[in-house]
């Protein structure tokens, strides 16, 4: 168990180091987030209060579209030079490989989110600094959900033809409960409402727990068959 966790951290460090050296996915993802933010400004012509009503929804749409670019690459980047076969054949348990890749995807996603949050606030005149720490809590919980399901699907579709087309079709519908929860909490926080957000928080946490355990249990079938 301890060895597995160490291996997971090792994989996460490897993935993060590879990404920070080239910054391919990171740059693309941040740029994509900016493009989506710009497109939103054409799509909606709303007053300040009205914009606050949809603020959480827009924020998470940006995050989930930009985030997909990162997590969906998790396993496919190991295909050239048969790196994936080597990783599977290594003594490390499959769940450790999966956990390591999820941790790396989670950190990268969080970086994209933290970079695009100030831009989002700036473009749309949204005050987020006062609720930053609470927002960060929601971001951590929901981003884990996006990372864990995204990396799992990245593993599932590694040998699928047209995987770039298939992934959004499979991944986005699955994220609906998580996004509903995260969007509603974020809107409540940004608007400064005193509404109780416990129920929404519960859904996000339950989603994380269910899919983390399900993915860890099934990853051996996904990778080894």
């Amino acid at each position: 168990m301890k060895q597995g966790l160490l291996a997971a951290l090792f994989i996460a460090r490897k993935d993060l180091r590879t990404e920070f050296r080239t910054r391919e996915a990171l740059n693309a993802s941040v740029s994509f987030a900016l493009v989506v933010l710009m497109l939103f400004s054409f799509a909606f012509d709303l007053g300040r209060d009205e914009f606050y009503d949809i603020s959480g929804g827009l924020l998470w749409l940006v995050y989930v579209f930009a985030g997909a670019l990162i997590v969906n690459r998790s396993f496919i980047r190991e295909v050239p030079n048969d790196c994936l076969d080597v990783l599977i054949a290594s003594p490390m348990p499959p769940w450790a490989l999966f956990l390591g890749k999820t941790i790396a995807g989670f950190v990268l996603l969080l970086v994209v989110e933290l970079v695009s949050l100030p831009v989002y606030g700036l473009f749309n005149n949204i005050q987020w600094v006062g609720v930053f720490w609470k927002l960060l809590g929601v971001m951590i919980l929901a981003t884990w959900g996006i990372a864990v399901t995204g990396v799992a699907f990245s593993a599932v579709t590694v040998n699928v033809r047209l995987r770039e087309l298939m992934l959004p079709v499979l991944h986005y519908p699955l994220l609906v409960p998580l996004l509903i929860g995260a969007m509603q909490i974020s809107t409540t926080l940004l608007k400064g409402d005193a509404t109780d957000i416990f129920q929404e928080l519960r859904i996000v946490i339950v989603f994380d727990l269910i899919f983390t355990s399900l993915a860890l249990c099934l990853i051996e079938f996904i990778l080894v068959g």
Partner: protein
Amino acid sequence: MRDKVIYILGILGTLLVIGNLHHIFLGMPGEAMQGQIGKMIFVHVPAAIAGFTFYGVAVIGSIGFLITKDFKYDSLAVSSVEVAQVFALINLVTGSIWGHIIWGIWWTWDLRLTSQFMCFMLYLGYLLMRPAVAEATQRATMSAILAIFAAADIPLVIMAIRLHNVRTQHPAPVLETGGLDPTWWPPFLIAIVAFWLIGTALVLVRLRQETVGREIDSLRRELHAV
């Protein structure tokens, strides 16, 4: 033997549907508040129940495949998903027509509509992905995992849409509130049984197609090997 079972189930189901529709349209008065359109309940709700039954069978088949690696279970899963999708579509379309007449709108994002639509979309992804995986074992494993992921997601969707600040338009089902007139129960139950019978016949037909398809594939591989 299997042919006979398919014919018997199919014919029995069809006869039940025809007899039931005859009774519903000619032998029953309209619903007290909604009139004739209220009779949509005899198609709309049984289609949903039959759909969820076959989704359930698909999940059992998927778990069976992961445990045993027997392709029979994979065939059962994919056949059941296809049939369940048809029933889910019937449910969505009839619900939309019903909603258009009673609510004045074709669609609204409320609890039941959204969860049914999500379910449909998740398993649509399942069906879309299958032809994109060339290797049979891999295809079956991926499909099984997707089916299990989708099944785990549905209760969460329902939980999420039940949140306090989400609009609701769809009434609580009369089956839960006990508001269905006693004379409406027999045709309602017959409709469910009829859909189950027709669905099972269709699953059996698709199962045979899957088995034959697999045999053709293995023969083709043998031929290439020679």
